[in-house]
């Protein structure tokens, strides 16, 4: 590479064939973060590349150090560049979205899923990031982290107020939906804490069920489970396993096809990759469609997890955004 290229922070510029497609990226790429890249050698960058797009599964709370999390976050969305490539990645990797940062409790970024007094849950082998959220009312997405678990709040909402708010702020560089600014809108902590406990109480008491969004890294859509239908962790873990097994197999094949396309169709326009893989899926497995909808958090959810009543109708208020994704049921059986 003789000409100094615009370095984009995703590390995808230069070397590999994929990145040559990024030549089309307008030169207005963010230069500030890219200034850290110029001295990286080629091999690192190549390996970074593939790692950056590789679909991987990680344990809850872990952050793969080489992976550029920013690839999947709002930075990418706000920059129009990388277009279809990024968009398709996002669609596939919606599970990696850190939009649940406001549910993180604690400054070390660990996912906290308090249930029956426990604060850490390893739900299953494989990457299942639980996002506890009082979804039925779904009114408050407060950075105070008070909604974690959607369980009745302790009578001391204000004890950890500062820690919670600050830790949420520390992670506020990650949300996919929008940035949350410290202290804006100007609402007193007392009010924020009170409203948070309000909504948690309401949704829990009123509905008698506790729906929780579950996402898996790399799955094309998310699922919802009613935690109240399970009595033990084991039950939850096996239920979630069943739910996500199809993805595991599908994803592995998807990853292969992805890489295949990368090397073989190096100069393919980003959009072609998406069409390419779905065509491939069609060919290999026959096609089946599932109905999904986009909820107010911007996540794609499988229709049917939440019983159709007034509360879930609130969730599905985005009728024009219904889309069909490809899923293959046959793989589960095999």
């Amino acid at each position, binding site marked *: 590479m003789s000409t100094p290229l615009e370095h984009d922070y995703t590390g995808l510029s230069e070397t590999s064939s994929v990145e040559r497609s990024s030549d089309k990226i307008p030169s207005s790429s963010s230069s500030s973060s890219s200034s850290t890249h110029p001295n990286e050698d080629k091999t690192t960058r190549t390996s970074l590349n593939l790692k950056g797009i590789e679909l991987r599964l990680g344990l809850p709370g872990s952050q793969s150090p080489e992976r550029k999390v920013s690839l999947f976050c709002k930075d990418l969305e706000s920059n129009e560049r990388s277009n279809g490539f990024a968009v398709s990645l996002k669609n596939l990797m919606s599970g990696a979205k850190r939009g649940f940062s406001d549910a993180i409790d604690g400054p070390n970024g660990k996912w906290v899923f308090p249930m029956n007094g426990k604060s850490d849950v390893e739900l299953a082998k494989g990457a299942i990031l639980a996002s506890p959220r009082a979804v039925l009312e779904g009114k*408050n*997405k407060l950075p105070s982290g008070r909604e974690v678990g959607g369980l009745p709040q302790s*009578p001391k909402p*204000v004890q950890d107020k500062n820690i919670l708010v600050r830790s949420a702020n520390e992670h506020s560089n990650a949300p996919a939906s929008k940035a949350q600014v410290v202290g804006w*809108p*100007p*609402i007193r902590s007392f009010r924020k804490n009170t*409203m948070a406990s*309000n909504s948690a109480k*309401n949704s829990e008491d009123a509905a008698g069920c506790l729906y929780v969004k579950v996402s898996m890294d790399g799955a094309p859509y998310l699922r919802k489970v009613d935690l109240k239908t399970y009595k033990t962790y084991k039950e939850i873990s096996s239920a979630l396993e069943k739910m996500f097994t199809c993805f595991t197999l599908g994803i592995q094949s998807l990853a292969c096809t992805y890489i295949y396309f990368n090397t073989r169709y190096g100069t393919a326009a980003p959009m072609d990759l998406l069409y390419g893989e779905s065509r491939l899926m069609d060919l290999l497995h026959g096609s089946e469609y599932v109905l999904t909808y986009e909820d107010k958090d911007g996540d794609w959810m499988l229709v049917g997890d939440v019983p159709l009543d007034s509360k879930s109708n609130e969730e599905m208020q985005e009728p024009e955004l219904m889309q069909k994704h490809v899923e293959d049921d046959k793989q589960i059986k095999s």
Partner: protein
Amino acid sequence: MPKRLASSLSYEVLEHVFSFIQSDKDRNVVSAVCKSWYEIERWCRRKIFVGNCYAVSPKMVIRRFPQVRSIELKGKPHFADFNLVPDGWGGYVLPWITEMAGAYPWLDEIRLKRMVVTDESLELIAKSFKDFKVLVLASCEGFSTDGLAAIAASCKNLRELDLRESEVDDTSVHWLSHFPETYTSMVSLNISCLGSGEVSFSALERLVSRCPNLRSLKLNRAVPLDKTANILRLAPRLVEFSACTYSAELRSDVFSNLAGAFSNCKELRSLSGFWDVVPDYLPAIYSVCSRLTSLNLSYATILSPDLIKLVSHCPSLQRLLVLDYIEDSGLEALASNCKDLQELRVFPSDPFDAEPNASLTEQGLVAVSLGCPKLQSVLYFCRRMSNAALVTIAQSHPNLNRFRLCIIEPNTADYLTGEPLDVGFGAIVEHCKDLIRLSLSGLLTDCVFEYIGKYAKKLEMLSVAFAGDSDLGLHHVLSGCESLRKLEIRDCPFGDKALLTNAAKLETMQSLWMSSCSVSFEACKLLSQKMPRLNVEVIDERGPPDSRPENCTVDKLYIYRSVAGPRFDMPPFVWTKDEDLGLRL
């Protein structure tokens, strides 16, 4: 003791005359007339208000006013409410209590806001002031139920205990039981901030039943519905009441008990609380609604139809606090029913959601301002605004004195024209000549500050966020607003020039807060050197400002005038000048 004045009014006469002058401003003027009046006045001043606890030292206050009975102190800057001031910044009350314990044995009222109060301070209060009557801790922190127990046990004549919006640590002490059985003086009790573990019902009931003068009772949300009715029956002369949890489903016996209890309270004028209220229980309060002047529903998740019904029963309402569930339709109903309305505050139910979850727009506010001629104070959160709406509000309400508008998304333009909201806010300051408090939001250029500087001559407090284009904006405000006392700014492109040019103005103001603006450390140092009676505090958690280039902007800046000099209780992340005119690290 002052000398007898032979040729003018005697000391006793003057003292008697001064006793009719209550306002601080007037007292200050009186004391500036001549030396003898200064002397007489300072000996008979009974009430002190210190808007910034670091502007003066307790010793100085005691030296000048030796016979104070009531003191009010404020600590942290206002933006501390929104978590912009890091923990540990300051605002400690203990030094004040320690000094006053010795100097003012007859002190009977202490009112604190945004201060750090420890159990030690509370214990010292309980021990030192024999006739202690009033303790108000608003948005304070740092104390626990242990401290409250000390107050309850020792203050035999306590009349008012108000803990509004404070953070209290629960040490599982049943502090309410520490009020002795002989204690009967309570007039006003506000414990709405306490958690469920901190209040024992039986102790509460016993306390209420033996205090015949109880007029204001604000309980916490853990008191269940049946207990509420009982307590109301024990205190039928209440004027203010904060209602409790209504989360049970409707039961007719509970309902009729509650309705009966409320109908007993003929003097009830103010209701608040309403956490978790189930709308079916609302009719229980209809009997008191016609006399209600103040209603705080800002924690209640009641929807518009129920709110409209409720509001239509309250024709005497002067003050309403509510969530945006009221929607435009509810505000229109308010405008037609409540002609005496003076204050309206509408809070967002879901502020962090990009999409509105309630149909509340600027139209609601316009309806209220057109329908309620006495409207004076507005706090309104919404998601869109137009210049036309603001102009309508301004023209229909020249008597507005507090106007705080928060458009939730920063930099939101006029949704009709796409233009900045300069003209709208300009109309507000131009027509509302008595405006003393203003908060801006939305897309705003330097123009709005030009209008403010030109017209807002009585403005005392201005809050600005995400607005302006350049230093000129800040310059307009500092050079034009003659009555300005408090200015708080965040995320605006205001920098060194405006600040240094108007350095003298800062001494005429109580305080200036600037965070995420463009002020350099160098300018802060310069300002410190030029203005010895200003405390220039650079609040920066990133480390010593010296470690960055001097033209690097500071994170947060808090400048306030002080006759006490720099303070000695600063945490490591606050930098200010020290005696050597260098900057202390």
